[in-house]
């Protein structure tokens, strides 16, 4: 059958979220989009809108204040989607590991597909990571992917699936998960 999967690879649109990063990795991500590295030649657009994105680029170690937003944005991305953790903090917590106001890496909250190390991650590595993420994206299905925490099962009423309330606030059913 004619498969549309290969086109996923050709037009990856990026959502970039800063979960409490020091802005080092953010600048490197923007450098990738600039004329020198020119990510747009792969069809990459930085949409800034979860509803139209395929790749979720997260930087930062996930501070307490950013957790809800992270989940909310993740659930608002349509499948198939991949998550790329950019920078050491995002992968493991980095220099912020075990601090009182920081979670150690985003994989505590959402499933991560590609880890990009480095403090800050260099543009070459980021491009390499995004290209690897595209291979994963090609194989993914349209099944709903769910975060590990702060998540309530989506409800289906009269055949209509509602994800409106699936991302929870901290404290709202938090402990159950």
């Amino acid at each position, binding site marked *: 059958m004619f498969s549309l999967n290969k*086109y996923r690879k050709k*037009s990856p649109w990026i959502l970039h979220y800063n979960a409490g990063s020091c802005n080092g990795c953010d600048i490197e991500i923007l450098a990738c989009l600039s*004329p020198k590295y*020119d990510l*747009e*030649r792969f069809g990459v657009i930085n*949409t800034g*809108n979860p509803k139209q994105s395929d790749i979720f680029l997260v930087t930062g170690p996930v501070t307490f204040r950013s957790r809800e937003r992270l989940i909310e944005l993740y659930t608002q991305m349509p*499948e198939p989607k991949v998550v790329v953790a950019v920078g050491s903090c995002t992968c493991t917590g980095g220099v912020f590991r075990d601090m009182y106001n920081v979670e150690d890496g985003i994989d505590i909250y959402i499933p991560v597909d590609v880890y990009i190390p480095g403090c800050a991650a260099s543009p070459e590595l980021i491009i390499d990571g995004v290209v690897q993420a595209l291979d994963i994206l090609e194989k993914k299905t349209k099944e*709903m992917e769910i975060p590990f925490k702060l998540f309530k099962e989506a409800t289906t009423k009269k055949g209509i699936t509602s994800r409106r309330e699936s991302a929870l606030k901290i404290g709202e059913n938090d402990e159950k998960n």
Partner: protein
Amino acid sequence: MIEMLLIFLAPIIGGFVYGFERIVRARMQNRQGPPLLQPFYDMLKLIDKQAFIVNPYHSILGIMHFFTLWVVVAFIILGQNLLYVIFLHLLSTIFLILAGFSVKSIYSHIGSNRELLAMIAYEPILIMLAVAFFMINGSFDISAIRENPSSIFPLILLFLAFLMVIPIKLKKSPFDATEAHQEIVGGVEVEFSGVFFEFLYMAKWLEYFFVYSLLVLFAGNNLIFAIVLALFTFLVVNLVDNATARIKMNHLIKIVVTIGLTLGMLNLIGLAYV
């Protein structure tokens, strides 16, 4: 027959223009840029995505925006009444604006609001354009305009005014405050996703077709001049897009209404005396 084919292919032609434009813009910035077929890759990818909706009204109005715009383009190709085409285009914009307002989203509302304000700026110029063509050709029919010789010299002022309308319609700097991707996340289109966003994406291609087919009316029956004019405008618009920054919405309205309307009025009065 060729007209039917053209109508059918209109979004695809617009898509090519868009793809080409992305390359041209990249080259102007000393980049390589995406491949020519990039818009179609995007389109095919969007079909494959999980469909999200906020509410049914929103999605339906977005789809209606696309189809109405297609009808507008079809009417231009078939050589219908120019004034009517402009009003029908207004209808398509209204569908989009209604879509923007039908969801409880801040960005969508701001985007719709700006779209409405931009309409104040460009709609009178388009109407004056139609009237000026009528005064020269004695008919509002696009087919009649296409049969007569080029009217760019008597309409030079309106042509300049129309050059100001193109960036508004195509969301180009300095008049792209309606979309403003970095500030209001694309304005009206923010809540669309998957297949539904695809309709908006293709509507953008049709907008290219619409604007450039209005532009070539200035060239009349001279095909070579039409091509030269379109290419020239294409380059100018992209050059300006790359060289300028976005201006605020109220400045947009002030600039376009004062300069555009004055140019249009002068042209109309001039035509009346000549």
